[in-house]
């Protein structure tokens, strides 16, 4: 029984770790649709990214990663820099 519980906990924790993750990042200087389009395109070119939501009104990008995948904050900052903007993490 004890072994079953431990196995179940390991399975659940692994499943949670591999589940898709979403992160919201603030973007400084993103004021127009062309800005947003560039940011969307740069992120969608990343194999780890499943979906991007850009909000000019709220000045953020919401990055939805593929299952078990993730980009580091440094990488996200680098992508935004390539797009010409600055990241702002909460």
């Amino acid at each position, binding site marked *: 029984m004890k072994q079953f519980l431990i196995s179940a906990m390991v399975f659940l924790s692994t499943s949670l770790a591999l589940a898709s993750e979403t992160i919201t990042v603030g973007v400084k200087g993103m004021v127009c649709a062309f800005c947003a389009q560039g940011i969307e395109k740069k992120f969608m070119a990343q194999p780890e990214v499943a979906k991007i939501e*850009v909000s000019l009104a709220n000045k953020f990008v919401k990055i939805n990663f593929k299952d078990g995948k993730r980009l580091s904050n440094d990488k996200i900052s680098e992508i935004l820099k390539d797009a010409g903007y600055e990241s702002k993490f909460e």
Partner: protein
Amino acid sequence: MKFWVFVFLLVSSVGQAHPVSYKDAVSLVSYNTSEMNEILLTYSFTSNLAVAGTYLRDTTSEFYIPRLNWLVKRWNNEDSQGNIYFSAGSGIEKFEMKNYAADLFEFSADWESRKYYIDFDHLYISRSHNKNILIPDQHYNFTKVRAGLAPFLADYSDLNVWLILQAEKYSYKSNIEMTQFLRFYIKNTLWEIGARFDGGGAFNYMIHF
């Protein structure tokens, strides 16, 4: 007069269509009036440096001018963005089956928020000949100021609408020419319809790939 239309087209940058875009971006811009057509193709190989090629045709000349666009400084603020650009290019003017050199240098600065927009441009062009009687000046300066207002705030996927007023000053003229534009854009496509206060119209578009 034709040459000044050419200058107008060469520097009438579509608002918020920056000379340098995101890394690996390709932009196609076209400026059109009843007398002229221009196609400008730009590739940004970093987020602050781009190479561009201009082709322009009017009733007397054709211009082929490759150029480099440099984002000198960008301010990414919470609710706005400011930029300073410098461009330089050297190409040819094809006139009566002969080629002549044409060089350009341009400085521009802009500031924009989601509601307001202002742009300043100064252009210097040097041409190697004055054989075209319609465009006799070889060296000149041109200054342009644009101000825009968005009557409502639209988000990324919505249709954005802007009202733009443009003032132009040529070094050889004492008056300032004014043009009003109505601009629309959605996602990666932008188009403008313009009317000069002294008559004439314009249609511009831009696509980011």
